[in-house]
């Protein structure tokens, strides 16, 4: 079914605009049209459907659930909920404090917060449609793996000692009594529809410009960077290309929506998968604006530890995938 978008893009770029498929502009424009039309179509249909299903899931429920459950399952659940809970990065501070003051260990809260920017339904949909299910699966497993491992590590080093004093106090004095059990209200279809509509408009308003920027960059790479450039220069063997990619990703601040079309293009150009993933995840998860925000609840030392932890794990994952997955 998705080949429809390829045909549409071929027709528009080559027949209507009269560009040649071999030309730089032709191939860039075709890429741009195909990806934007495909992404917008899928997002509109799928966000609506997913939102219908998940209308009754909210952050308060996730907190109650995580507070009640056993610690070891907790990291995985934290990371899992981080992936599926709708949540805007401007809420990370209140969510962090809400979890902490409910007595949820810092590690589990961080599993939630680390996974959250990396994986969400928009990212997964885009990956599925642009790079196929195999790479999507690898991406999701790495994202959750980094979240879970990061969380466990932070609890091992007793990261709560490095919180700001008021947050530490809230954690230590947490008494989470679930006496006010929120009645599991049954939503009518109408309410679900309203929720899904709001959610759809909300997400589209947030991501549409990222899609254009991301696909634009991807298209430029696709059209103008010579076919073998990446393979020749960053292809195989150079161990330093992965840490370089991770470092390059730090100052580039983007969300998953903007970076996935670039990722598609990099893979098509023969950049090894591990290097590509390391670069993209670093762009999405290791961003200064969000880290500075966390300063309100953490000390610099803890921020530094988490930041290094992310960079290190993306590098290791990059190397590992390059070793294991030779396209």
């Amino acid at each position, binding site marked *: 079914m998705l080949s429809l978008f390829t045909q549409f893009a071929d027709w528009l770029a080559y027949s209507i605009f009269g560009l040649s498929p071999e030309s730089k502009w032709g191939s860039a424009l075709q890429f741009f049209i195909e990806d934007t039309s495909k992404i917008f179509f899928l997002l509109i249909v799928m966000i609506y459907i997913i939102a219908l299903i998940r209308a009754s899931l909210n952050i308060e429920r996730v907190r109650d659930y995580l507070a009640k459950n056993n610690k070891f399952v907790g990291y995985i659940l934290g990371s899992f909920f981080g992936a599926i809970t709708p949540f805007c990065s401007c809420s990370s501070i*209140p969510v962090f404090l809400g979890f902490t003051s409910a007595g949820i260990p810092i590690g589990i809260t961080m599993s939630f917060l680390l996974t959250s920017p990396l994986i969400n339904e928009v990212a997964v949909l885009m990956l599925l449609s642009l790079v196929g299910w195999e790479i999507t699966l690898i991406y999701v497993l790495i994202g959750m793996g980094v979240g879970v491992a990061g969380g466990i590590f932070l609890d091992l080093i007793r990261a709560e000692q490095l919180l700001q004093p008021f947050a530490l106090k809230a954690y230590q004095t947490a008494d989470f009594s679930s006496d006010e059990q929120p009645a599991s209200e049954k939503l009518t279809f109408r309410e679900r529809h309203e929720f899904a509509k709001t959610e759809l408009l909300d997400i589209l308003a947030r991501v549409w410009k990222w899609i254009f920027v991301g696909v634009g960059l991807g298209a430029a790479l696709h059209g103008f960077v010579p076919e073998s450039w990446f393979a020749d220069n960053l292809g195989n063997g150079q161990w330093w290309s992965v840490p370089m990619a991770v470092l390059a990703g730090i100052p580039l601040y983007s969300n998953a929506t903007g970076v996935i079309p670039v990722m598609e293009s990099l893979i098509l150009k023969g950049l090894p998968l591990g290097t590509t993933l390391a670069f993209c995840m670093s762009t999405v998860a290791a961003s200064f604006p969000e880290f500075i925000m966390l300063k309100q609840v953490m000390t610099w030392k803890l921020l530094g530890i988490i930041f290094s932890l992310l960079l290190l794990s993306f590098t290791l994952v990059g190397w590992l995938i390059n070793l294991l997955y030779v396209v």
Partner: protein
Amino acid sequence: MKKFEVLGTGCTKCVKTAELIKSIAAECGVEVQVIKETNPEIMMGYQVMSTPGVTIDKHLVHSGSIPSKGKIASWLK
């Protein structure tokens, strides 16, 4: 006079919420005070996890979205 607090870490939705309350209050001719509260410790006190949150005279009445005009009007009565 009613005292509103808009809780949020400074995202656009919180700014819009504060403006909306002010403009509807002005329409209804009700005098209000609207403060934007960005201190995370205070947000924690209200147990707010999704912003923007709205309090009236220190009672939490709303959280998680920009409140609808109807809802704001009902607070002003």
